[in-house]
């Protein structure tokens, strides 16, 4: 460390750093490289999503030929019509929003509270509780015992089965705990001296300071809750009115695949030339389904982002 000699130049004011005279070339070179790299990255990561959008707006019978890249060859809204044709999707959307919001709020509150207690080094149960939570990341009791638990708790076919089993994530707890570790301990200590209780310290001091990491965790939880379909599949599949958006879309997708590849039907029923000439194919339905499923949650991101993507340099952090 520091064995390179750097001639301390005239001290530049922080605000004028960008123009600082030390090495004009280095930042420019770096910036050129960085910009080019970022542009490449944007191209490479935007492409799959863009391509999916293109496929979702292209006629299924044409998409099947392949070679579709950045622009639809035969524009159609047919795929989206097929997705929105079933009325069930609107109710499912509301259920998805409700479970996502509720899960996120509960998770953030409970996980942070737990993380706070476990960040306190003097806490006597710190180690055992941490261990018990950490281990949950590495085992899975299996489908059937899990099902029995939900059944015994009378959660099958209720909305709560989406929320209650996943109110705390050990991974998120550890991430938050690590973040709390970077907050100066003196803050907690001085609050204690002022006579603040633990909950008050947590809620008034730690919680607000954790904003960046909480925004991240909120995003993780929200995306997880939004995308999950397995609980709907296992626990609420006989209650149509509790179905979630993801599960409805999944049913739609599998049924379109099914309609196109069902040996049982082909065996006896005799598929007709007519019946098979349908505009929608699994490929195009999948694309439309993906867009419908992901756009709502993608819209959340910019709101969370402002908490953790800040400008690096001095000025912007301080605000």
């Amino acid at each position, binding site marked *: 460390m520091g064995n390179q000699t750097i001639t301390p130049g005239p001290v530049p004011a922080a605000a004028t750093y960008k123009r600082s005279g030390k090495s004009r070339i280095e930042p420019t070179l770096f910036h050129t490289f960085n910009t080019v790299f970022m542009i490449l*990255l944007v191209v490479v990561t935007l492409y799959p999503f863009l391509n999916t959008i293109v496929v979702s707006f292209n006629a299924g019978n044409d998409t099947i030929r392949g070679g579709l890249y950045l622009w639809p060859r035969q524009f159609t809204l047919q795929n989206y019509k097929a997705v929105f044709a079933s009325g069930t999707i609107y109710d499912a959307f509301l259920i998805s929003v409700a479970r996502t919001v509720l899960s996120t709020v509960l998770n953030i509150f409970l996980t942070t509270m737990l993380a706070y207690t476990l960040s306190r080094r003097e806490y006597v149960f710190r180690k055992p509780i941490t261990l018990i939570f950490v281990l949950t990341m590495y085992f899975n009791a299996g489908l059937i015992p899990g099902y029995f638990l939900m059944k015994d708790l009378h959660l099958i076919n209720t909305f709560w089965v989406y929320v209650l089993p996943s109110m705390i994530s050990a991974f998120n707890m550890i991430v938050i705990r690590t973040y709390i570790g970077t907050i100066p301990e003196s803050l907690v200590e001085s609050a204690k001296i002022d006579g603040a209780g633990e909950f008050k310290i947590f809620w008034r001091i730690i919680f607000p300071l954790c904003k*960046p990491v909480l925004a991240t965790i909120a995003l993780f939880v929200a995306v997880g809750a939004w995308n999950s379909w397995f609980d709907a599949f296992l626990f609420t599949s006989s209650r149509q009115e509790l179905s979630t958006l993801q599960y409805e879309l999944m049913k739609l997708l599998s049924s379109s695949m099914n309609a196109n590849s069902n040996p049982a039907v082909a065996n006896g029923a005799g598929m007709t030339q007519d019946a098979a000439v349908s505009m929608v194919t699994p490929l195009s339905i999948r694309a439309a389904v993906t867009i419908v499923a992901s756009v709502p949650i993608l819209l959340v991101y910019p709101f969370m982002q402002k908490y953790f993507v800040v400008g690096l340099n001095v000025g912007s952090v301080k605000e």
Partner: protein
Amino acid sequence: MMEETLTKKPVVRKPKKGKRQPMTWSLIKNQRQLIWMSVPLLAYIILFSYVPIWGWTMAFQDYKPALDFADQKWVGFKHFKFLFLDDNFLRVLRNTLAMSVINLVLGFVTAIVLALLLNEIKKVFWKRTVQTISYLPHFLSWVIVTGIVATTLASDGIVNDVLMKLHLIKEPILWLSEGHYFWGVVGASHVWKEVGWNTIIYLAAMSSIDPALYEAAEIDGASRYKKMFHVTLPGIKPTIVILLIMSIGHILEAGFEVQYLLGNGLVVDWAETIDIFVLKYGIAQGNYSLATAGGIFKTVVSVTMLLIANWIAKRLGEERLL
């Protein structure tokens, strides 16, 4: 002067030794608020995560869902034997470890590098744009991503096109027909899909770095790289270490979807993972016992690896999990 500012750690609390107090009633009473805030949650996790572990008994039975627990047939280690004694077990284990290590290393390095580079972008709008776009592939299913990977790597795909145009190859390479390429293709696909998503957590960690450290470094005339290596990186080190320890515990989680979707008869010796094996001979055969045995094996390995990683971190004086 500069050395001084730079070596000053951005308030990372170092584990202190020998501070442990004996557990006494007065201590418990003192900490009752902390207890109230955590013990109910402990009860919660025991109920939802630990109670169902009775299901592990299935691994030692020929479990039939239609029968009551008392009527199940106990078979000892039969299912573990089936798993471990299969001719393919070692190969499958090798593939799982190889792909998981590749994913782990590539995943960490690319995410951290990208986070550092993003952090260097000054225009907030551009930074946010790059961030937002780079995480989009996370929302695509593996079916879609592997579909695009397959098209990209096809004999008339863009990768072969570019290589041909650059005269690096004379004939298109069939990337998916060679076992040697398979792990790399899987690793690259993971990076492509997840790198943007994985940076989020580091960006959040970076936001906690005390701006005063940068100011001080600047006053010292530290170069961009100096700041990156001596301020930013140490600032996110606790996060990196913790995530690394947790990931090492997942060493047997190489997944199955990508391998299943990209694999084919020609590369099957490189593509099959433990998860695929267990799916094929477990769930797909209605053999829940084998699936459970596979799960137990993975848990044992996971917890061992986790404890080792944690112990190493402790020895190195780094942030640790437990």
